[in-house]
C-alpha cells in the first residue's frame, strides 16, 4: 500500500501538488488523471523520489520513503516514463536487463529473466532481443519499456502516460495487454493519463486531479461516471458519461428477465459482454429483446428496461 499524507510540492510560488492525501491499495491499478499541468507526473515521481516533496510524507507499507536509500527504493519500483526513454545504445535485451544488472544478478539468471519478460509482453525473444530501440515500432518500444520496468519483478509499477504517443487502435491493444498482465501479476500500479477514457478502462480506481494537484474525486470508475463529485469532474468526464459507463458493466450482473411465452429472441449476447454491447444488440434486435447466453446455457433475456435498471 502506498500512502500519501498531505503531500505538497511547491516550485517557488507555484504549487504543483497541494496537500494530497491518497491511499493506493496493494494489487490495484490506480489512475492519476487530470488536465495537462495538474501535477500528475509530479505526484507520481514523488513516489520514487525523482521529485522530493516540499512537505508531507509518502509511505510504502507503512514505511516513510524519505528514510530509505534512494537508489534501493527506485530499484524496487518499476518505472515507465512519459517518453519511454529506452537506452538507444543498448539492445532490447540489455535495456530490459538494466535493473537486474544493477541488482547484481548473475548472467544466466538475467538472460532467463529477459527471455521471460519478452515473452510476457508478446515480443519473441529470438527476434527482438538483439534489436536496438531505433529498430522498433512505437508500440514495440512501449512494450519493451514495460518489460524493462518489470525487470527485477517489483511490487510497484509507476507508469507515466505509457501509451501516450501511440495511435488509438494499438493503444487499446496495449491497454488490454496491461490488464491481462495485471490479472497474472497483481502489481500495485500507479498509472498517469490525461485521457479519461483510458482512465476508466484501466483503473480499479481513478484519482482525478485539478490544477495545483488538488484531488477532486477518488473513486471506482463506475462511481465516478455515475456520480461526479463536482462540476469540474463532470466537465472533465465529458459528454455521454452514462452511456460510456455501460462499457464498464457486465451483462452477467444485470437483472435478466425470464424468457416469456413468445420464445427466445434469435439475437444473442454473451454473459461477459458489456452492457454497452448489449444495448447495441437490443437496439438492433427486431423485438428489442436479446437472449443472454453463457456458453451453451441460456441465462435469460435482456431488454432496454433491464439495461436501464442495471445502470442505476
Amino acid at each position, binding site marked *: 500500500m502506498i500512502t500519501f499524507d498531505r503531500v505538497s510540492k511547491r516550485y517557488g510560488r507555484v504549487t504543483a501538488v497541494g496537500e494530497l492525501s491518497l491511499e493506493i491499495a496493494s494489487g490495484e491499478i490506480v489512475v492519476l488523471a487530470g488536465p495537462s499541468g495538474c501535477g500528475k507526473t509530479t505526484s507520481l515521481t514523488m513516489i520514487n523520489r525523482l521529485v522530493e516533496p516540499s512537505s508531507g510524507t509518502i509511505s510504502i507499507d507503512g514505511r516513510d520513503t524519505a528514510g530509505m536509500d534512494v537508489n534501493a527504493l527506485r*530499484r524496487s519500483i518499476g*518505472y515507465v*516514463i512519459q517518453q519511454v*526513454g529506452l537506452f*538507444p*545504445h543498448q539492445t532490447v535485451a540489455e535495456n530490459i536487463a538494466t535493473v537486474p544488472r*544493477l541488482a547484481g544478478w548473475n548472467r544466466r539468471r538475467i538472460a532467463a529473466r529477459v527471455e521471460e519478460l519478452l515473452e510476457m509482453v508478446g515480443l519473441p525473444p529470438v527476434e527482438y532481443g538483439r534489436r536496438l*530501440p531505433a529498430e522498433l515500432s512505437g508500440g514495440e518500444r512501449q512494450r519493451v519499456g514495460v518489460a524493462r520496468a518489470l525487470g527485477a519483478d517489483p511490487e510497484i509499477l*509507476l507508469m507515466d502516460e505509457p501509451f501516450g504517443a501511440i495511435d488509438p487502435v494499438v493503444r487499446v491493444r496495449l491497454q488490454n495487454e496491461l490488464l491481462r498482465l495485471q490479472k497474472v501479476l497483481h502489481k500495485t500500479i500507479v498509472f498517469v493519463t490525461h485521457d479519461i477514457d483510458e482512465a476508466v478502462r484501466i483503473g480499479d480506481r481513478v484519482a482525478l486531479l485539478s490544477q495545483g494537484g488538488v484531488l477532486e474525486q477518488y473513486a471506482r470508475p463506475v462511481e465516478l461516471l455515475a456520480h461526479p463529485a463536482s462540476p469540474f469532474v463532470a466537465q472533465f468526464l465529458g459528454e455521454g458519461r452514462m452511456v460510456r459507463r455501460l462499457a464498464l458493466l457486465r451483462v452477467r450482473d444485470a437483472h435478466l428477465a425470464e424468457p416469456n411465452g413468445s420464445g427466445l429472441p434469435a439475437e444473442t449476447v454473451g454473459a461477459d459482454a458489456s452492457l454497452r454491447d448489449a444495448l447495441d444488440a437490443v437496439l438492433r434486435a427486431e423485438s428489442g429483446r436479446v437472449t443472454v447466453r453463457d456458453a451453451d446455457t441460456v441465462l435469460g433475456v435482456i431488454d432496454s428496461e433491464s439495461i436501464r435498471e442495471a445502470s442505476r
Partner: protein
Amino acid sequence: MSIITYIVDNWGTLGPQAVTHIEIVAMSMAAAALIGLILGVFAARSERFSTLILGVTSTLLTVPSFALFGLLSIWVGLGNPPVIVGLVLYALLPVVRNTATGIRAVDPAVTDAARGMGMSPIQVLARVEMPLAAPAILGGLRQATVMVVAIATVGATVGADDLGQPILEALGRSSGTLAQVLAGVIPVALIGLTADLILAGVQRALSRGTAREAGG
C-alpha cells in the same frame, strides 16, 4: 622524384624525428583527453562553469604557438616538455566543448529513466551519458589531434626533436631546399591523416544506436 629520394636518404634522422613527433602528440592527446573529459562533464552540469572554461580554452587558442612554447620553456625547460604542455592547452577546447555538447544532447527522458531505475549519478554518467556522447567526444578528439599534429612542428623552435626540425633547418638556411621542407611536411600530413582515420573508425564503432556525429 627528388623529395622521395631525399626522405629515403635522410631516414636516419627523419625516422627518429617522426617517432618523437608521434610520441609528443600521443602524450599530449592522452593528457588532453583525460583533463578535457573531466572539465567537459562539469561544463555539461553547470552553465557558469561552461562559460568560464570555454572562454579560457578558446583564449588559449589565440596565443601564437611559438610564443606559448617559448613562455612554457622558461617554466619547464627546453625540449619536448614545453611542447607537450602547450599542445595539451590547445587541445582542450575541442575536447571540452564536444564532451559538454555531447552530454547535454542526451535525451532527458533517457537520463530520467536511468535515474528512475535506481542508477547512481556516476552510473548514469558511465553507462548512459558517456556512451551516448561518445561519437561527439571522438569528434572533438579528432579535431584536436589533427590540429596538434600540425602545431607540434613549431615545437622545434624550443628544441623538440620532432618533424619540425627539418622544416626549421631548411627555413633557417639560405641553402635550404623545398625538398627539405617537404621532408618534414609530408610525414606530418601522413601522421595527421592516419590518426584521423583511426579515430574516425573508433568513432563509427562507438556510434551504435546514436546519431552519427560529424567528425571534422
